[in-house]
């Protein structure tokens, strides 16, 4: 961590963006659960931290006009996982979030930080991909919305341009009603990143049923497997085996201290099949 590090506390998004535009070496700070350890390890060395936690609109969860939900980037995961609208309409998000770290960590770690850090193992990101979330961002140039599906570019790499600030993550009303399971393997139950994470979701509100298959920690980014979803929509849960094979084909795991590529690939197949059969 730089000895000349500075700490800035803007009280509005506009102020934050202006501060960031004025200093190329600055970084936005939310819970710091990714950023501070990275700074300690010398992997990042920003000259200024722009703390976004005291900007009120970034801390809100709001209903949107289409029956969806907008979650401010600075809302901590512990608040998202117990929010009645999340539990009622978007339980897949709570299902994934509950596996992150441990409860005290989630009182500090935000949803916005989880996606901006763009770890291949980001658990919340899998649900946001599956639920077709849109990420609203702002910079000195203006505002834009980035679909979750084109946000993640690689480990630590996102579609954010330098200085762009994520304001909120928007779940569309049309994605309400998916239920399911996030089947996650890790070396121990808490405080460890996923070795493999498989999200299987299903919505029975329409005919045919809609399905969602998301994967964590088995590719350079969190993934959604559209081919497997389509197969399940066409054939129902009877196609569990085929969906599992399509998910295995879509993943691109590496071997690391948490598990070998071969193990991860096998587990993707096992967990997709298990999840589909369970949701039937």
């Amino acid at each position, binding site marked *: 961590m730089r000895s000349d590090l500075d700490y800035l506390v803007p009280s509005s998004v506009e102020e934050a963006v202006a501060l960031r535009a004025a200093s190329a*070496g600055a970084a936005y700070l939310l819970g710091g659960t990714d950023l501070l350890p990275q700074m300690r*390890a010398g992997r990042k*060395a920003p000259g200024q931290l722009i703390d976004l936690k005291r900007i009120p609109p970034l801390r809100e969860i709001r209903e949107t006009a289409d029956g969806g939900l907008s979650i401010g980037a600075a809302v901590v995961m512990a608040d998202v996982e117990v929010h009645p609208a999340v539990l009622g309409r978007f339980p897949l998000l709570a299902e994934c979030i509950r596996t992150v770290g441990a409860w005290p960590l989630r009182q500090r770690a935000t949803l916005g930080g989880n996606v901006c850090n763009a770890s291949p193992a980001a658990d919340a990101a899998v649900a946001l991909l599956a639920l077709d979330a849109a990420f609203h961002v702002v910079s000195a140039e203006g505002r834009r919305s980035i679909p979750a599906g084109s946000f993640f570019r690689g480990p630590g790499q996102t579609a954010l341009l330098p200085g762009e600030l994520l304001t909120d993550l928007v779940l569309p009303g049309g994605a309400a009603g998916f239920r399911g399971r996030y089947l996650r393997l890790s070396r121990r139950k808490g*405080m460890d990143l996923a070795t493999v994470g498989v999200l299987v979701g299903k919505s029975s509100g329409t005919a045919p049923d809609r399905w969602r298959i998301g994967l964590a920690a088995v590719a350079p980014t969190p993934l959604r497997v559209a081919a497997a979803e389509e197969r399940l929509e066409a054939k129902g849960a009877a196609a569990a085996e085929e969906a599992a094979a399509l998910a295995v084909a879509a993943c691109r795991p590496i071997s690391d201290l948490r598990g070998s590529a071969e193990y991860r690939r096998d587990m993707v197949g096992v967990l997709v099949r298990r999840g589909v059969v369970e949701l039937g």
Partner: protein
Amino acid sequence: MTEKDGKEGCGDGCPHGVSRRGFMTRVGAGTIGLGVAAAAGTAEATVHEIPPGEPHRVTLTVNGTTHRLLVEPRETLLYVLRERLGMTATKPGCERGECGACTVLIDGAARYACLTLAVEAEGHEVTTLEGLTKGEEPGAVQRAFMDEDALQCGYCTPGQIVAAEGLLRARPDPTLEEIRTGMSGNLCRCGAYVHIFRAVKKASVLRKDAGR
């Protein structure tokens, strides 16, 4: 009241907080930072210039006592508590949010002091293990940890006790499952978990008896 030159402490070789060693590379040093300090809870912001790396004047409320001090932005709350305020009950363990040895309460909820910059704690109520004791009289959670023999080496214990206090403030009568979840951010290398869970349950009873 503690008011010290922020340049003191955290010297090379300091095992706590954020060490200077290895992080001396300055890129673009000499630029003037624009500091915007917003008083907690008010919408107004006062803009003032802070040369980079200069200590910030912060007011920290720890266990109900107000401390005005100068801290460098890179100093963690863990470091400031231990090295500036001399409150050593909060322990450094991993110093990267993985073990819970440094657990304090911020506005009543368990947080890792190693993952919190001291400057971030301004305007919030910080409670440390010292604040859970009345003089030499142990608090309910401490009593329960002793009664249930919920420790071996004891290094994780301060963090465990503070985490338990945070859990019990949120859920005065937790189920075993809630205890396991609430305490999941605190590792015990000696593996005293079963006793720790029992102690938390017992503490919930002691707190109730004490009318809290």
